[in-house]
């Protein structure tokens, strides 16, 4: 749905100051359009009609335009066999949903706007991997978690979606909005020994 309201938006990490250090950049990311796309995969050819959006990637990878943690076009994070989190710059929800619906017509699917469900942040720099490892049990080494990886996991007691967007050390992290403060504080606490020295 188009959100052309003049009402003020307020996001969970509004006003949070980025953490900067030679080994670390941690900052909230701006609002984004997020669609939860569910469709049972058939022959990959069925997705040909999805202009610019490739749903043929492996589970726990993302497809789409080259990006950094900031969005640059449409990115589809395949989180499960029949589940994608589609990310796009803020404001594109309705036309994006419409074009997906058109492309998938005739196939049982679900498109649900979850733009406001998440907050996102970027954590980058040579210390990023160790800091995320304070709470995430996955092997985040670039050999095990290469560029192109996107998966659900945990950070401490919060569920997250973690993506390695490009070859620089770092991640984009999506978290349910009510847990964004916890996740930010958790990472900031884990980063103290880096940032304060």
């Amino acid at each position, binding site marked *: 749905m188009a959100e052309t309201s003049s009402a003020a*938006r307020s996001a969970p990490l509004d006003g949070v100051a980025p953490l900067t250090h030679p080994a670390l950049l941690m900052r909230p990311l701006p609002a984004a359009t997020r669609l939860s796309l*569910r469709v049972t995969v058939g022959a990959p050819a069925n997705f040909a009609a999805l202009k610019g959006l490739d749903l043929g990637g492996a589970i726990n990878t993302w497809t789409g335009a080259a990006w950094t943690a900031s969005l640059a076009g449409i990115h589809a994070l395949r989180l499960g066999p029949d589940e994608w989190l589609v990310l796009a710059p803020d404001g594109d929800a309705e036309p994006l949903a419409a074009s997906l619906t058109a492309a998938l017509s005739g196939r*049982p699917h*679900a*498109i649900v*706007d979850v733009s*406001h469900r998440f907050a996102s942040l970027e954590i980058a720099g040579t210390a990023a991997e160790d800091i995320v490892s304070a*709470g995430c049990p*996955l092997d985040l080494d670039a050999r095990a978690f290469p560029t192109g990886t996107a998966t659900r996991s945990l950070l401490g007691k919060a569920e997250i979606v973690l993506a390695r967007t490009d070859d620089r050390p770092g991640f984009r992290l999506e978290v349910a909005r*009510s847990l964004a403060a916890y996740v930010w504080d958790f990472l900031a606490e884990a980063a103290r020994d880096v940032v304060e020295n």
Partner: protein
Amino acid sequence: MSQPFRLPTGGRIDRSSPLVLTFDGRAVHGFAGDTVASALLANGVHLVGRSFKYHRPRGVLAAGVEEPNALLDVDRGGGRREPNVRATVAEAFAGLAVTSQNRWPSLERDLASIADRLPPVIGAGFYYKTFMWPPKAWVRLYEPLIRRAAGLGRAPDGADPERYEHRHAHCDILVVGAGPAGIAAAMAASTAGRRVILCDEQAEPGGALLHDQTSDIDDLPAQAWLADGLATLARRANVRLLARTTAVSYYNHNHVALVERLTDHLAEPPASRPRERLWQVRAREVVLATGAHERPLTFPDNDRPGIMLAEAVRIYINRYGVLPGRRIVVATNGASAYETAIDARRAGAAVSIVDTRASDRIGPELDAARAAGIEVLAGFVPIGSKGRHRVTALRVARLSPDGALPDVPDARDLACDCVAVSAGWTPAVHLFSQSRGRLEFDTARDAFLPGSSVQAVRSAGAAVGLYDLAACIASGARAGAESAGAPVPPAVHATPTLTGFAPLPPDLPLRLGGKAFVDFQNDVTAKDLALAVSEGFESIEHVKRYTTSGMATDQGKTSSMATMGLVATRRGLAVPAVGTTTFRPPYTPVSFGALAGQSRDRLFDPVRTTPVHDWAAAQGARFEDVGSWKRAHYFPRASEDMAAAVRRETIAVRGSVGLFDASTLGKIEVVGPDAGRFLDLMYAGIMSTLAVGRCRYGLMLKEDGFILDDGIVARLADDRFHVTTTTGGAARVLAHMEDYLQTEFTTLRVFLTSITEQWAVIAVQGPKARETIAPLVDDLDLVDAAFPHMSIARCRVAGVPARLMRASFTGERGFEINVPADYGRAVWEAVFAAGRAHQIAPYGTEAMHVLRAEKGFIIVGQETDGTVTPDDVGLARLVSVKKPDFVGKRSLRRPDLSRPNRKQLVGLLSDAFHEQLDEGAQIVAHTGQPIPMTMLGHVTSSYMSACAGRAIALALLADGRHRIGETVHVTTADGFTRATVARPVFIDPEGNRVHG
């Protein structure tokens, strides 16, 4: 003190960095690189504590984590105080303040040491046998007395000022222990390109190489070989070397917990530096190169200060440049202690050796010792010691040629100020045993060794009973290479190590008087163990618990084999027949801080807040915890207490309009051509017949027929529903629905998406609710005919795209405005501003509870507890009889769920109209019955209702619907009160108000 026992040269301490610490207030001089123990010994201090039970004087026994005696209170400054720290692992720094424990008034004059002269009163099982009668004396007399006398050290009473961290790590090969075997393993594995983590519990990696001044490895001195190896490993990007890091616990699937100590050795650590970091390592392969612990000899008075493990004496001499005594007697049953004797002699001590083996059973070490000018008494055994706070002589006796102790021993005293004892070695198989690997007894080595593995783990070096340096390195290299799937590197050449020992008969000390200690920390003697066996304890597990042998904080590292050997001998069995105890995590004590990591204070548990939270906080709302959510509990004005605020809020809702943040309600979007059919299976009622734009209240049952959750099902389109759940049930309900969708009703084409956090939910309730929001709503006609109770529509509210629901949890006309969460705050404020004209009141969860209880609306988890059916709470009308199946339907026909006299939801009115019953209070028919009374049910909800003008309560009461009008008795804090059973609705029983 001027370090009279410090050697003029040698050791790995930094003599350019002198330091002063205090021990019981006295200055102790040392050097950087010292442990507290080495600094104390350098100053001639052996007496460092009193024993647990008998308060006997005790000194430093060991040089590592196995230390049972030297437990000190360590104050690192700034609130960093910790009791029961092993002096042998605590690193010294300037200003460190250490204090002895378990003595009063002083270490030298300890009054409680009288316990030592009252044996055999406190033998094995003392507590079980003594404090049996009379029962009341236990609480009043015995327990306070024992509590005062018992325990070691003084627990800190302030908050821990330090930081702790957790870190997950992954590697191909984890190598535990950086002695010769571990270094060889890490070298082989990392040469093959594998990701390696090498951890070592000591401040410096190197293990036994750190105190080996005599061996050569491939023509390099051992310590040069070590330095080369560590430098190579440090250069490799695929190796992470963690010093001061103990592998404490070995869990499933090669999940190993390491505790890294980062600041305990620093006088002024950076504030941001964690004191400890708990590493959770997941390794494809594990190599355990954990070494071995030396065993003390068991003989009467074997615990005097100055009696130390032989290898520890060698460590203090070679690694710390400290001579623990000037006149040292080495008492041993094997070869390795000869290295100690030779090194001590070279360091200038007068040394003699007492070897329990006959001279023809001693290997080349005999000639080596004699060549060094050391007298060797072969075929002698220690039978006692002399001295008070420090050993002054070792009493030894000649064994007969068959190795027995004659009835009248030929005894002599050897004057000394230090005894270095060795009864052989116990491989450190703790982690291997934790990994569920099987231990097998090796008679030749008199020890349990790693047998078959359950996980991908290999052991190497002294941990498998290899005590020769070249053999250790070879086994480490093999383990590392095999773990990496790489060829085994060529063997190294090393100076042969003096190895081999001949165990003594374990019951030999029983023939002598006095206390021969097996477990030093728990004061367990050989006689205690013999007593336990004679009293009928057979299993080693029972003997251990009865005598407490091996149950102190050192977990029997120096005593386990002596315990097992003695029990086996007394039972006339071989050691493997008695069995070994199970090793459980952790290997060494772990701080609570390390376990908690960052999860303390505000990070202890996530605090979830809604988009309206900050507004409510600014209005002075009080919050309550609902799961991990903070929900506004009530909005006090000025001096209002909760009762006054709730009264005002409920009156506002029933009189005009109230505003409630319902954002925490769970919400699920159910999409797909079979969505209606699926919801028919998930809810007790029929949902597939719901018209688009309409809502229906539904109960969700578990398969067992009991209520799981409730909520509103709203139809947005033929193939799209917006479903609400309780706040606490959000995750549970989604999981329940996913489970059935994925595993039972797999042919249905339905997708579930959580939208709980997508939408902020603003409930506007009360007779003026429509007037309040009407000016803000675009694209929708709100008149009752167009938008009746239980409707849903997409529209705009305050310009924001919304899903507007007409629904009520108060019994009043009500709307629930769903807006995208980022807009929640702005729309809330717009509604609040629009409601000013109607004296709108924000209300909290407490008023919400009162309002719904006035109407008899249940709250799942309050009126229900997992054993309540729809009929029990009077909602049988929500259960479809037409549908052939839904989850829970079959169970409702089970005899116990369909019997007529189950507990049923009723109202309760206390006789005194202002008397609020206690939630959870039990209900009985009359109070005259004998205890235990027949309990008919309990109060589930109880409030003061301003609108009903009295206290109201809901209860689950046996056969309750047939008891309407009856008097029952309800428990209070100090008795009973009377109440009348009523219908569970206290306001507007006809339900007219909800329609306007």
